[in-house]
């Protein structure tokens, strides 16, 4: 019995059974469902629907006109006072018309108070998260940038 045990231990050693068992554990985790690495620029991460990312000023999809009524509520709601809304009164229709809309993303903490305040759902925090720019001025977004959204570099693979 004792000799058989020794033989078995010897065979295990010669045939690298322990090594193979250990490697099998490693090999088992090669299954794609256990791989958590995201190949980021090639593979887009899953962003939650309610994610508070880059701001966007929505336009009417049919006419291309802005939905913003220049009510200034977002600028009043902002804790950091980083939204500047300028408007002038149209003499014919007696309505306020948006002239400039500036949003300083460098100071923004994406709390979502501005989009909560918007009565017409014009200002919205979107799922875009790539906000890097080469200059500080690039972080201050004007109306055109807010309507078109950020355009991060697309890499070909």
């Amino acid at each position, binding site marked *: 019995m004792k000799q058989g045990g020794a033989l078995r231990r010897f065979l295990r050693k010669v045939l690298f059974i322990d090594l193979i068992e250990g490697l099998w554990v490693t090999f088992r985790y090669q299954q794609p469902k256990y791989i958590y690495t995201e190949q980021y620029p090639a593979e887009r991460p899953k962003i*939650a629907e*309610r994610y508070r990312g880059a701001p966007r000023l929505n336009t009417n999809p049919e006419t291309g006109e802005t939905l913003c009524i220049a009510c200034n509520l977002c600028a009043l*709601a902002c*804790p950091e006072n980083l939204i500047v809304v300028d408007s002038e009164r149209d003499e014919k229709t007696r309505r306020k018309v948006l002239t400039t809309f500036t949003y300083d993303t460098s100071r923004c903490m994406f709390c979502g108070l501005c989009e909560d305040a918007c009565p017409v759902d014009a200002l919205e*925090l979107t799922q875009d998260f790539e906000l890097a720019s080469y200059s500080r001025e690039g972080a201050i977004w004007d109306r055109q940038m807010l309507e078109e959204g950020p355009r991060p570099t697309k890499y070909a693979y």
Partner: protein
Amino acid sequence: MPDSTFLDATELVLNMGPQHPSTHGVLRVILKLDGEKVIGTECVIGYLHRGIEKIAENRTYAQFAPYVDRMDYVAAVSNGLGYCLAVEKLLGVEVPPRAQAVRVILTELNRIASHLIWLGTHALDVGAITPLFYCMREREEILNIFEKYCGARLTTHAFRIGGLQYETYDTFEQDVRAFCDMFLPKVDEYEELLTGNRIWIGRLRNVGILTAEECKAYGVTGPLLRAAGVKWDLRKAQPYSGYEQYDFEIPTGTIGDSYDRYLVRIQEMRQSVRIIRQALDGLPGGPIMGKVPKVIKPPVGEVYVSIEAPKGELGYYIVSDGSTQPYRVRVRPPSFVNLQALDKMCRGALVADVVVVIGTIDIVLGEVDR
């Protein structure tokens, strides 16, 4: 011959931090050492001071809510809950039952996340690397639930004054239930790794003892106080946000050393899962926002509301002068008060024990410095 020569003068003053990895941020501890023995310590704080209490005086009540998340950023949801409860008490607003239940679920999830961060980093300080990865893995699931619920993972800004801004998303209940089912066996896994581990016991047993009397004298609250054997939990002592409906136990320790605190926090994670399950079972329907005026203008007065944050008693003292902005906001942060006891716990211990003691207090420097 003189009694002592210069060779006997072994006292050494040593700076630990603010860049030391086991000071959990930017805490600087000046240690006075006799060889390897700590004779005295002095904490230098303020490296992360952002003047959050002063910022509050220039913001409206609703505008200040995102800032409180930046104090204890590991448990941002608890901070938001404490602030919202304080302003609601000042306004006399009733929060609908559904909002209360969802608040309880999210704060308890955040308590688990905070304890997981504590367990992972504390074990890492002591030398066990594996628990950190395990804890981060489970915390990720909680953060995913937060991201799906309110759109942010860390500084959530999940609650608004008077209730909630966001209704729960479609699969919220399934997600939280799935997390609870997945999480309880994982706690057993952590215990398998650490509870009976000889190195873990050797490093933590009888290190940083703080008795019940000393805890009370220093104003220490939270798991440190419970580990000393005092059954004090604000969720039971003065229930808020509907905690009186839920059945849970207050885990306590016996001698109040680091190992007891570890056991208390592990048990608290299990109790949190128990509370979350009860809250999910009895999740009422109805509105999620109370009757709050558009412009929040509380009457003249002052209010102090404290909640049981993961690290201890988190209190908000708000003075209102009747305008839209608070006159003064004072925060009673649990980490700051608990850190006072560091010197008491470290004296007579070894340098390596200082690392354990800092880890066992569970400080977040964003909250200490504000």
